[in-house]
């Protein structure tokens, strides 16, 4: 039985895993880099160990250091979270070889599914539908040109080792292909250490629909229904929901059974996600398997009532699946908005800095999976996810309205966030009508990238800025009807009035 877990991650997912462990009476060890000494996950864990310099390669990607820390602190298992080492088969193997339990799938299926090229070939053989594309990896630009001409533009360049949209490019004409391939290779090399990229036919106006799956070590496998994650910027999800607005019972059963076939074909165990694209005629195509807990897992938890992180630990403990497919039901509707430190007005450029003030949203059906508090530092070294706001409602409309309210009540000052942008998405008629395609933002939100802030709003904010500044900097209050600079006596007098509890 697992008694003590090292969480090889940071931010909100580390906090999420720590909480699940605590509920199961499992001790927790957080690891952190120099810049994360005051991070929330360090505060939450029972123990914490600094594992190195801020650069991820020196800390959160340092396999030997992490495994040694787990052993030194008496852990019997490692939870990798998502990102960093979560889908690295070498890490997975090393953890197991050192005698520890890796909370996740075995290294072999992880390796197979980690290569988009290899997993695609396996799925074609198993009869799982895939998108037309270039077979096999290639590094010659000529091969890309031949393949692109054959399938016709637009084409999509993808990193073989990729995920999270990194290394992905859409190319509309052959003259842009070379530059895009080179840029994708560089980005893939820097993000994943491999410059292997491939091409596929770009399906226009598709929906991204993924199925949560889980399998135990005794051959039991289930699907926990879908999540639609079509609202994406930079090919990265930002708003997710469950169920998908287009789902019907028949399609759900077919896709769910295909998802189970995918994990059975690859001998996958533990929790995972099978991603599909669904076109306007409800044809679906296998994209890839995410061999880890997903960022957006909470919406599945909200509609099924199943704690997926606890399920991961249970399966890693070699226990049987506690339910069968027939036991699982989808209830109500859940939406997640990812609160990133980023600038929606500037192409979603990541933002870093200090959280000067945080107010977490509350209310019925509201859940806030956060990695920050007031005073937290958002370092430049990592993915800028701050928190995930999840709401549940009895139906899609109730969930949508709840989410808008909760976003408005979520105050994050000190870094830029896309809170306003996500409110605008949720209020858009196309979103309300469920017309959510992966190009939703491009098509519907492009002219909202630079929101018009009206004068009234600026004035109100100016007043707050002035007031706050005065309260904080007692000596700078300007007094007198003539606007003269105050004498120290006047300033002190003014301050006392302002600060009294009236």
């Amino acid at each position: 039985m697992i008694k003590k877990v090292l969480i090889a991650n940071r931010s909100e997912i580390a906090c999420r895993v720590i909480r699940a462990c605590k509920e199961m009476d499992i001790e927790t060890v957080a690891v952190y880099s120099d810049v994360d000494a005051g991070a929330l996950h360090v505060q939450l864990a029972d123990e914490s160990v600094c594992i190195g310099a801020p650069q991820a390669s020196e800390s959160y990607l340092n396999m030997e250091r992490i495994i040694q820390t787990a052993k030194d602190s008496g852990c019997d298992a490692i939870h990798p979270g998502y990102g960093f080492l979560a889908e690295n088969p070498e890490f997975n193997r090393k953890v197991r070889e050192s005698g520890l339990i890796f909370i996740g799938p075995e290294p072999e299926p992880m390796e197979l599914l980690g290569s988009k090229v290899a997993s695609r070939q396996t799925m074609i053989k198993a009869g799982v539908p895939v998108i037309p594309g270039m077979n096999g990896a290639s590094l010659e630009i000529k091969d890309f040109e031949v393949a692109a001409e054959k399938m016709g533009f637009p084409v999509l360049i993808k990193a073989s080792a990729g995920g999270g949209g990194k290394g992905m490019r859409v190319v509309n004409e052959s003259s842009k292909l070379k530059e895009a391939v080179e840029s994708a290779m560089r980005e893939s090399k820097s993000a994943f250490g491999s410059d292997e990229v491939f091409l596929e036919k770009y399906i226009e106006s598709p929906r991204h629909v993924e199925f949560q799956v889980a399998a135990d070590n005794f051959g039991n496998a289930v699907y926990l229904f879908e999540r639609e994650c079509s609202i994406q910027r930079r090919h990265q999800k930002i708003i997710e929901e469950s169920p998908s607005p287009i789902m019907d019972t028949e399609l759900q059963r077919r896709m769910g059974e295909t998802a189970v076939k995918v994990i059975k074909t690859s001998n996958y165990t533990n929790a995972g996600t099978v991603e599909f694209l669904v076109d306007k005629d409800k044809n679906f195509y296998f994209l890839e398997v995410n061999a880890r807990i997903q960022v957006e897992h909470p919406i599945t938890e909200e509609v099924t009532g199943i704690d997926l992180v606890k399920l991961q630990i249970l399966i890693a403990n070699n226990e049987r699946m506690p339910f069968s497919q027939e036991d699982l039901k989808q209830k109500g509707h859940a939406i997640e908005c990812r609160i990133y430190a980023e600038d929606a007005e500037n192409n979603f450029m990541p933002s870093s800095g200090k959280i000067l003030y945080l107010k977490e949203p509350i209310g019925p059906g509201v859940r806030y999976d956060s990695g920050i508090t007031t005073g937290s530092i958002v370092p430049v070294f990592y993915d800028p996810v701050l928190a995930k706001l999840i709401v549940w409602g009895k139906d899609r409309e109730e969930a949508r309205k709840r989410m808008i309210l909760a976003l408005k009540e979520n105050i994050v000052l000190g870094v830029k966030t896309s809170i306003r942008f996500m409110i605008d998405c949720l209020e858009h008629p196309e979103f309300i009508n469920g017309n959510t395609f992966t190009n939703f933002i491009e098509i519907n939100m492009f002219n909202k990238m630079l929101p018009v802030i009206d004068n009234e709003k600026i004035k109100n904010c100016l007043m707050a800025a002035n007031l706050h500044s005065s309260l904080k900097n007692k000596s700078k209050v300007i007094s007198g009807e003539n606007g003269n600079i105050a004498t120290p006596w006047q300033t002190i007098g003014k301050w006392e009035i302002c600060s009294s509890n009236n």
Partner: protein
Amino acid sequence: MEIKFKNDVYQIDYEKNDSEYTFNINGEKLTIPIYIVNDNCFSVKINGKSKSLYAAEDENHLFISFDGDSLTFDKVKEEEKDFSGASGSEDKDEIRPPMPGSIVKVLVEEGQQVAEGDGVIIVEAMKMESTLYSAIDGVITSVNVKEGQQVDSDDVLVIVEKEQV
């Protein structure tokens, strides 16, 4: 006090009378009731409706959140006041990264002609590539960085200047 929103400078101060505050914004007077919940949170009545305003500051900025919007104001420092307008020159574009990161590729060389909107340099921060563009038509007068170099957000990477006719 003097603060900037985007390119507009505002002169603002206030007087307090009981629970009402009279603000003077660029000469325009506005009186509103405000309850100070704490240093960061103000409960106000605007046209009869209750609203909450949230505020926080760091050395150079004031951050305000209001009804789902977040606005960032720049503090105007004493030393900048005399030179206001000088930094926004249209004859010269000093290209800086939006945040600390590393240089992926320099797309131009000194002496090269560029047009407004031309890509000048590719930087990477938080594992994402972004291309920075020239804001003016002109000529590259200075390239201060090399590929692979780590840069800070205040570093001037490339300077574009309008050609003197």
